[in-house]
């Protein structure tokens, strides 16, 4: 791990490379407020305050050129996780950040596990070999019965619009691949998140982003993981926070 002595110099660094700037985001009273500070010349600490209720989580995004390139996600976080440190950044570069909330109902959770008789050695050896995962890409499989989609953005219909009947099946010609299938009951989702929780973890994490109307997808455990939980969320994004901007300094370890 690299030395963290720079953490003692934020005020000096701010004076040297510039202070954070913030531009307004949503004017709603429950708008997210994002702040950022340099904790070294090339490390930026971010914190957001999100007073809105009913939020499923937040996505923190960045760009270096907001006018000409898209924001890309740095992470998806549960509602009670409101900090992130962006480490070892490109030197002498402006970083722009924003946070967006996401909303939407989740499916039932399914608990899965690999066979108990699978040894760690056999698992690792099998995983290292190429496996046929042609069944795994996201797909839209016709439903066996008609499903009328409901809105996930309307509080009166959101619960009934949650993905349902999530099932996970270990695909036998793989060592750790699970085929996931569910019923899409929503009509206005921006997409689906595959969320997973590892054994002993307190929170679900976003594992994958799927396009609207998808109802089949494959996911593989990676050794040594043998048990876990999956669920599917139909999601949509809310209004972004204010945008904060910081200029990084020279990288003391890069020498360029």
């Amino acid at each position, binding site marked *: 791990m690299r030395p963290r002595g720079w953490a003692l110099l934020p005020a000096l660094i701010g004076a040297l490379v510039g202070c954070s700037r913030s531009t307004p985001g949503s004017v709603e009273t429950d708008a997210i407020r994002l702040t950022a500070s340099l904790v070294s010349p090339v490390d930026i600490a971010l914190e957001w305050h999100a007073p809105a209720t009913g939020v499923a989580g937040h996505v923190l995004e960045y760009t270096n050129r907001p006018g000409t390139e898209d924001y890309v*996600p740095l992470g998806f976080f549960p509602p009670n996780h409101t900090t992130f440190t962006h480490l070892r950044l490109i030197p002498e570069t402006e970083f722009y950040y924003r946070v967006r909330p996401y909303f939407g109902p989740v499916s039932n959770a399914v608990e899965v596990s690999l066979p108990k008789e699978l040894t760690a050695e056999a698992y690792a050896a099998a995983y290292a070999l190429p496996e046929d995962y042609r069944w*795994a*890409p996201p797909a839209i499989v016709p439903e066996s019965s008609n499903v009328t989609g409901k809105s996930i953005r309307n509080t009166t219909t959101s619960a009934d619009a949650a993905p349902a009947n999530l099932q996970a099946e270990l695909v036998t010609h793989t060592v750790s691949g699970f085929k996931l299938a569910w019923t899409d009951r929503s009509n206005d989702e921006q997409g689906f998140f595959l969320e997973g929780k590892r054994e002993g973890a307190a929170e679900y994490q976003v594992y994958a982003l*799927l396009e609207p109307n998808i109802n089949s997808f494959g996911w593989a455990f990676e050794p040594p993981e043998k048990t876990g939980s999956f669920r599917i969320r139909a999601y949509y994004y809310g209004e972004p926070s204010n945008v904060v901007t910081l200029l990084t300094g*020279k990288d003391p370890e890069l020498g*360029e």
Partner: protein
Amino acid sequence: MSRGKVTVVAVILGLSATVQAQVATGPWSSWNPSFNTQTAGCGSISGSTFSLSCSSSSGEQRAERRYETFSSGVKQFQGTVRVNSLGGDRISLQQTFASDAWSMIAVKKPGSLYQVRGGQTLANYSIGSSVRINAVCYTGSDKVVNYVNGSLVQTYTGGSGSYYFKLGAYRTDSGAGPVSVTWSGISFYQK
């Protein structure tokens, strides 16, 4: 083994203009290298989407852009890639070539980016999301500094001679398709 076909699709003269929004210690000017497209085996390219349609774990399977060779100065690649689907494993997305395959940033299941040579994990990755890669190649010191989502993930040394950048989808020696990836925001700079 399938034989690759090379199609020249663009030859753009390099134009020099100072870049307003600098990424990395500059000053940088814009650079517009020409590129060829390279497909082999089950690889195909549609616009900026690069696909391998088969699950073959042997032979040459590629769908890539190969940018022009350079041998002096400092060159920077930037691009954003989204893995739309990964029905295979261990697919190279972006390369900095020296005299041979050198720095190769690849994706593997269930969701991470790694350096093919040496196997170092570079970043976690959620399939379906966008991730930005910056690669700064210093020909004078024969190294490339790789950034993922703005963070330095690896300084890769040991290059020599002339260099070029590649992007797309390429089956690594231990990998297999199918895969579909889309690149956007591709830009180059030099100093």
